[in-house]
């Protein structure tokens, strides 16, 4: 790789040992990719310093502290270095525990303590504790063309496609190193020629609701895998929530990191502009039959209609979605035979507290949680057998992780299931 003078200085250790180790890792990574240079970035979203009992135990001999975990794991260094303040706008994405309600999640005190300590450590080193998979709903909204280094597939696809900012799907080690150095390999989605569409999805059925967009996303990811779809045809214009569910679904059934919606998203002024010099490699039609097939696939892990768990907030709910959940609950109560967990970010929860939504949910028998979700924390209420979910992404992961059944439907169907402890979803 060709390095600038300041990058060489970091690699030579002029900026300190931690920066040197970070740069060494980034050079190994850049060379593995086949990148020939770095690009500067100050917007970094990762999971620095996250720990678990395995890592704590593994690094016990190295002191076991957070300097050790950050050096040996995050930077993949062979020696423990004192970690300096980060020099970028770095934030921490979702974690594994709600700091207030970890007992509800069934976490052990030891794991909750480790989580709290690692958070204190990285906060002391300048990392913003957003603790969400939706940083763009919690104060980190990159601008068009901004180079970022983000983890979290649903956030990456939102960043590239909806905001027109530029990021690859980074990993824990690359984001932690970038927080110290302010550079990331100039490869993939940082480059113009990589961002054009490759496959076309012709929508030929009504796509209007959040659930519709989730299903279209799930179809699209499965169809194009890790390529770049261009959506065109008969659909309503999506809003933030619909983009969020569409992208998260496409990044779960496939590896979509960027998509275009012709005439809608910022780098797709027209269908032609979205493809640039490319010709569509393949064209897929999404009609009534395909929509039903996706619905059936998502609901193939449901059999028992007695629902005992409803989980909402994948990706983390926005304030409007929490408001909608409250409206749908109305003056009803959650069934004694069912639990309702709704996940959001700390920033949004603070607003929900002010609007008394947190209280409304609690009084109805549910709970508003932060930082994590059932799939990430691998926690469900004890004895759960059948879940109801309004997220295609969560439906993709949760039943597989936890060995439970799951139904996928609208938010209203999920709330009704929580009230009646019964699934009454309607097949489109």
């Amino acid at each position, binding site marked *: 790789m060709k390095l600038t003078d300041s990058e060489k200085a970091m690699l030579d250790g002029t900026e300190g040992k931690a920066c040197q180790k970070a740069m060494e*890792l980034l050079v*190994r*990574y850049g060379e*593995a*990719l*086949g990148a020939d240079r770095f690009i500067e970035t100050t917007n970094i979203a990762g*999971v620095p310093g996250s720990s678990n009992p*395995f*890592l704590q135990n*593994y690094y016990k001999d190295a002191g076991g502290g957070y300097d050790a975990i950050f050096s040996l*794991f995050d930077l*993949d260094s062979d020696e423990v270095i004192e970690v300096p303040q980060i020099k970028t706008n770095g934030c921490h994405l979702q974690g594994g525990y709600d700091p207030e309600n970890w007992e509800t999640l069934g976490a052990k005190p030891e794991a909750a303590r480790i989580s709290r300590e690692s958070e204190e450590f990285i906060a002391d080193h300048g990392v913003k504790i957003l603790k969400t998979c939706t940083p763009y709903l919690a104060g980190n909204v990159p601008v068009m063309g901004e180079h970022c280094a983000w*983890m*979290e*597939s649903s956030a*990456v696809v939102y960043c590239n496609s909806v905001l027109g900012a530029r990021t*690859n*799907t*980074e*990993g*824990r*080690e*690359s984001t932690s190193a970038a927080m110290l150095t302010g550079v990331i390999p100039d*490869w*993939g989605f940082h480059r113009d020629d990589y961002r054009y569409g490759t496959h076309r999805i012709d929508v030929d059925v009504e796509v209007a609701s959040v659930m519709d967009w989730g299903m279209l996303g799930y179809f699209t990811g499965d169809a194009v*895998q*890790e390529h770049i779809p261009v959506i065109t045809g008969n659909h309503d214009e999506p809003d933030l929530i619909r983009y969020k569910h569409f992208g998260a679904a496409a990044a*779960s059934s*496939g*590896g979509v990191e960027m998509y275009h919606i012709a005439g809608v998203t910022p780098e797709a002024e027209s269908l032609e502009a979205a493809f640039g010099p490319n010709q569509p490699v393949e064209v897929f039609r999404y009609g009534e039959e395909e929509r039903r097939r996706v619905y059936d696939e998502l609901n193939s892990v449901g059999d028992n209609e007695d629902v005992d768990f409803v989980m909402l907030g994948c990706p983390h709910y926005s304030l409007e979605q929490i408001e909608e959940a409250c409206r749908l609950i109305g003056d009803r109560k959650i069934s004694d035979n069912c639990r309702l967990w709704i996940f959001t970010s700390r920033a949004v929860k603070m607003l929900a507290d002010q609007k008394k939504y947190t209280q409304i949910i609690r009084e109805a028998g549910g709970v508003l949680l932060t930082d994590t979700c059932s*799939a990430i924390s691998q926690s469900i209420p004890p004895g759960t057998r059948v879940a109801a979910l309004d997220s295609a992404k969560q439906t993709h*992961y949760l039943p*597989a*992780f936890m060995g439970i059944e799951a139904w996928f439907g609208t938010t209203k169907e999920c709330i009704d299931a929580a009230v009646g402890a019964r699934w009454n979803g309607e097949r489109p």
Partner: protein
Amino acid sequence: MSTDSALQAEQKIVLHGRKVVAGCAEGEALVTSETISGWGGVNPMDGTVIETRHELRGTSFKDKVLVFPGAKGSSGWSAIFHMARLAGTAPKAMIFVEMTTKAALGAVVVRAPAMTDLDQDPISVIETGDWVKVDADNGIVEIIKRKD
């Protein structure tokens, strides 16, 4: 051993490609035509693939030369493979087809020799059980076909 099979055993296929991670290692191949998920797809404590419906489900890549089309799924890919290295369950070497940030970073932190951009499709040339030497430093993969 008959002369024929002795000859066959000696037959070596050589592929050329690009180094992803330096080093040289050899071992038994574990080949899949399906992309691999890290987080949620692999248990790093024993190196087994756990993804529902994956053709390698229940099989461990520990000490194998893992040959796969590429990485998919969560951005936790590298961290899971990194933990596999710490737990001693990582592959001995890796060969993959599609370059992505997940696969590149994962290969880097596994620290085992890794290669891509081979001059023939490794998924069709290499079969599970073949003896494979990955000489990433020289950009060479040597394959000795399994004797059935």
